[in-house]
């Protein structure tokens, strides 16, 4: 999000920030996932972004995002990893052939990712998954000026967690534990918040 447009170098810089943020959050995310699932979400997210951050990116934004998808596929094939790869792939399709993308296209890219991920994972909005975070972020970006986008995304990611407090997870491993999952954050939504925080350069603001 360098000055209203996105290019290869902007993506590279963003990936580096997210990789660092994901690495720092790995233990927290493993623990959150361990409460309801198999405890690997921190590994998934940190390995995936580390791989993407160290990939050679072509100048074409679409092809660059395709590399990100492939990087995730290569190292992290858990649900989250596959979904993130699916999301990158959808954004790649929409941006292929461009070397810069306007910031205001972001909202449709996030929405495209959300839709592809819903198709792949057969999930619905309201299931208390990362889908809800994406949906909220895409909607928030719609109304935000370029300079406010980071803040808007951040609030949306944060608000999603708050909005689902007390509601049970309806998808993935966590689904088994209606009661317990209601009292806890969805690990995937939490991971998404950590990603957005890192993107926005606001890592380390503590637990949501």
């Amino acid at each position, binding site marked *: 999000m360098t000055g209203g447009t996105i290019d290869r170098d902007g993506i590279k810089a963003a990936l580096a920030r997210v990789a660092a943020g994901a690495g720092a959050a790995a233990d927290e995310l*493993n*623990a959150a*996932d*361990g*409460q*309801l*699932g*198999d*405890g*690997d979400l921190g*590994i*998934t997210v940190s*390995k995936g972004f580390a791989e993407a951050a160290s990939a050679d990116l072509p100048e074409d934004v679409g092809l660059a995002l395709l590399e990100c998808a492939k990087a995730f*596929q*290569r*190292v*992290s*094939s*858990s*649900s*989250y*990893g*596959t*979904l993130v790869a*699916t999301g990158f792939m959808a954004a790649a399709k929409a941006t292929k052939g461009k070397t810069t993308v306007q910031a205001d296209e972001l909202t449709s890219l996030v929405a495209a990712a959300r839709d592809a991920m819903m198709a*792949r*994972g057969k999930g619905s909005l309201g299931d208390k998954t990362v889908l809800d975070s994406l949906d909220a972020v895409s909607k928030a970006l719609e109304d935000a000026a370029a300079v406010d986008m980071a803040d808007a995304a951040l609030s949306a990611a944060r608000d999603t967690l708050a909005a689902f407090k007390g509601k049970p997870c309806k*998808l*993935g*491993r966590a*689904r*088994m*534990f209606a009661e*317990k999952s209601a009292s806890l954050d969805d690990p995937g939504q939490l991971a998404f918040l950590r990603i957005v925080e890192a993107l926005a350069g606001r890592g380390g603001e503590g637990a949501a």
Partner: protein
Amino acid sequence: MKKILNRPDSYVDEMLEGFTLAHPEFYAQPERRVIARPGGGTKGKVGIVTGGGSGHLPVFTGYVGPGFLDACAIGDVFASPSAEQMAAAIRHADGGAGVLRLYGNYGGDVMNFDMAGEMVDLENDIRTTTVVLADDVVSAPKEEAEKRRGVAGMIYAFKIAGAAADTMADLDEVTRVAQKAADACRSIGMALTPCIVPQAGKAHFEIGEGEMEMGMGIHGEPGIWRDKLKPADAITDEMIDRILADRAFGKGDRLSVLVNSLGATPLEELYIIYRRVKARFDDIGAEIVMPLVGRYATSMEMTGATITTIALDEELERHLKAPAACAYWRVG
């Protein structure tokens, strides 16, 4: 971390290297993280592939072999292989008669196997079908049975589907039999101590000294209760009761039973469990055919056990008893 390894990052690849070196008569690794039969797919036979995370040996790769599977894609410990790897496994399993994808119901695996199917359809014109194992009775109520986790029951499905494919039946028929086997399985697990995913370096849960967790999943997914460790017969009774509540057996019924260690629990204790299992089905008047007691689907060094039942009719029993061989299980 009390594990014997070189580097967490090389755990799976070095394991697979040793695995194929030790059993070259059964297993080849034609591409990284893909295990196939040394001779490749069998011409005219439906291929059967599975896939899933590492850390469950002999599941998944171990069940590649005559009368079992044709190929397997294998991921990091407890993580799905990639769709690319699954597509490669499908290609290696293909003998021209289509390929059945037969694997456990986990989100990552399902999404990736779906993608892999799309890939080989587009790129290789290979027809694929899917049967997903969802045998863990505690992981969803009966009304949502299709959402259950797939656990040790899959080894029965591997065996039976493999035998069906060996009759040279077509893809739809093999798929039908595999689905029937999957539907006939019920499993439940319990655990006493966790295992360590090498790349995590520490356990993601602990169970207090003198405690156990009933219903735990094979990746350490939470179970249904955690409390004081009970006597073996009481543990077995609860496991059998929960299976029977979901799938009753009656006098004259035939079934097979797998009493499976998650890794550290020794054979000695599995036999103590099996003793009770046998008594329970003797009481019912149901006959246990070809019981399996051992380490068939593990979670590395986790302490605990699972029980699986599979209700048998003539067809399933015939396929269960058909000749088959891999490094861990031989029939006939």
